[in-house]
């Protein structure tokens, strides 16, 4: 029994959330059961991801290959849990469990009736399953299907709040994201037509043989992929849907959208760029320069846009635009340190931004106020929430002992190794700007006169979830050991290929 479970773990981490999601609507009347099931599945996912990561670490990075239906690679669909897969599975489980805990018993105010809350959980689990699938899949068409499942469930999560603005944001998001996934599908089509394979490994081998014969097709495929995933992961000029969508969604949904959903698309882009095209093609077509440039523009522009916002959740949403810039910048650094930094920063941002969004959600729920200037003195009324918010901000800015610092440090090292000076300056300026838009919130909260109102910390599950996320940030910052090892192994594997 245990042997069967451990042998099939790569597929269980993907299908368990999906199938539980489909069964949930039948229990819609019994809210406790639904919430319990969701948290149970998330906890199981964390255990499974931890086990897979320990195996991958023990095997020195040799990936676990799982063949669906027993069909071997060029014909069948493969799941591959390598260092990258295990790393991202851990991130998914580590963020989605606290977010599910936060949502417990807390959604009826933002979402509505029991049926609507159940639907929210269904979409939440679907998104989780799709993200887990993105982490482990090794098949190009699966990438498209999972991206679409994730997109649809994200739009559903945004429109879960019963408010016309949420519907509007969801519609904009849906149209732009579908445009993006159509472009992704087009890119996959070009790859399939030129190589004849949908499996990433075989496609990459074939591409390495023939790319010099038709470089234009490869160019078109790369540009379709870049623009498609750029729209979906809100790279700066293509970010227009993000602020509305992430600020109008219910708080747990904002946390999961900003923290994880965007990262899923980035992981897909990373896999396609480095596992299919490979680093030789990236350098031959100078894609890495485009990525670094786009990342720098996104960091500066996103930070400046965030500075101008007064609404708390909108400021955090624009901050996501800026932080995605760091990840794109790291994607363009074709060396081990840069890619390690990129992966670690991805994990760090996932944890920190969800902590920030959840804390902001708790504050908005307790006070009923949206804008930052109205939250004076909240730090003394809601100490735990504001402490977690502070920890998240420090991590995002990149103060040592918090997780963001290690990611930024490796990004800077990678840039120096690649001989880029301007990106280093941009990273530092970006951190200063980040401090400029986050620290005023903390100052307002702690050092301004306390308003005479009855604001309180949220309930026990919410407190536990916030504290879990804060602890995760500190652990990642102080003892990054196994995570850093997984990230650096994954980075090294990307550069060994071809």
């Amino acid at each position, binding site marked *: 029994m245990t042997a069967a479970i451990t042998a*099939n773990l790569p597929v269980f981490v993907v299908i368990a959330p999906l*199938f539980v999601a*489909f*069964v949930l609507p*039948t229990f819609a009347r019994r809210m406790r059961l639904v919430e319990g099931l969701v948290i149970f599945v998330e906890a199981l996912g964390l255990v499974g991801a931890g086990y897979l990561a320990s195996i991958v670490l023990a095997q020195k990075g040799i990936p676990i290959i799982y063949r669906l*239906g027993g069909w071997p690679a060029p014909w069948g669909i493969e799941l591959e849990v390598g260092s990258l897969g295990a790393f991202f599975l851990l991130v998914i489980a580590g963020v989605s469990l606290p977010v599910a805990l936060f949502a417990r018993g807390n959604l009826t105010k933002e979402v509505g009736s029991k049926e609507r809350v159940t639907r929210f959980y269904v979409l939440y689990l679907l998104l989780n399953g799709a993200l887990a699938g993105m982490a482990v899949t090794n098949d190009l068409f699966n990438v498209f299907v999972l991206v679409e499942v994730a997109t649809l469930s994200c739009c559903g999560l945004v429109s879960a709040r019963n408010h016309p603005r949420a519907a509007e944001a969801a519609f904009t998001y849906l149209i732009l994201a579908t445009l993006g996934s159509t472009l992704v599908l087009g890119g996959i089509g070009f790859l399939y037509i030129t190589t004849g394979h949908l499996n990433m490994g075989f496609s990459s081998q074939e591409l390495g043989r023939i790319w010099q014969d038709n470089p234009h097709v490869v160019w078109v495929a790369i540009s379709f992929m870049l623009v498609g995933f750029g729209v979906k992961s809100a790279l700066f000029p293509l970010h227009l849907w993000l602020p509305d969508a992430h600020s109008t969604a219910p708080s747990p949904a904002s946390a999961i959208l900003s923290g994880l959903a965007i990262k899923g698309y980035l992981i897909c882009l990373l896999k396609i760029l480095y596992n299919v095209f490979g680093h030789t093609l990236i350098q031959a077509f100078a894609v890495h320069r485009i990525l670094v440039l786009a990342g720098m523009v996104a960091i500066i522009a996103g930070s400046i846009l965030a500075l101008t916002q007064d609404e708390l959740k909108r400021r955090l949403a624009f901050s996501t635009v800026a932080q995605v810039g760091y990840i794109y910048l790291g994607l363009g650094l074709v060396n081990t340190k840069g890619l390690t930094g990129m992966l670690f920063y991805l994990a760090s941002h996932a944890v920190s931004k969800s902590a920030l969004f959840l804390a902001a959600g708790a504050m908005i729920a307790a006070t009923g106020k949206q804008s930052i200037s109205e939250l004076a003195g909240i730090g003394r009324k809601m100490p735990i929430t504001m402490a977690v918010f502070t920890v998240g901000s420090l991590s995002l800015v990149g103060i040592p002992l918090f997780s963001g610092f290690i990611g930024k440090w490796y990004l800077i090292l990678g840039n120096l190794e690649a001989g880029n000076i301007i990106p280093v300056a941009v990273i530092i300026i970006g951190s200063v700007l980040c401090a400029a838009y986050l620290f005023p919130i903390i100052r307002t909260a702690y050092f301004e006169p306390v308003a005479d109102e009855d604001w309180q910390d949220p309930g026990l599950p919410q407190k536990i979830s916030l504290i879990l996320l804060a602890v995760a940030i500190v652990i990642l910052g102080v003892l990054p050991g196994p995570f850093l090892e997984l990230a650096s192994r994954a980075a090294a594997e990307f550069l060994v290929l071809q």
Partner: protein
Amino acid sequence: MRDFILKRVAAIILPFICTYGFYVILHGHVSPGGSFAGGIIVGLSFIAFSTIYGIEKGRARLPETVLTWTESFGTLWYGIMGMVGITKGAPFLANKLAGIDLGVPGTLSSGGLISLIGLGVGIRVASTIVTLFFTMMEEKS
């Protein structure tokens, strides 16, 4: 719409349409069509029933709880069929490797678990289409 001829003809034809839908679902591996197309046909037979006899009667035939259950368990059935392989020590969704006899090519039994999996998907597709139809019709009024 409430026409005598229409109602009589529908009463005769609709059972056959529904059966044909299940035929298409089960023969997905040996003929064109499959669980999605067949599921749509099954769903359309219920939609035709509701448009001809009225939404209320259609709702009475297929109450919301029934639709929720078929929708959920159509998908769960897929998972259960996938698990058959795991219980036999083969990977998820294994068919021949799970020790299922594949019979003569071109016959119904030659697909092994495929037609059974397709049944789950078809039921799911049918109930989703019917749910969409009911939701949109009730939205209007």
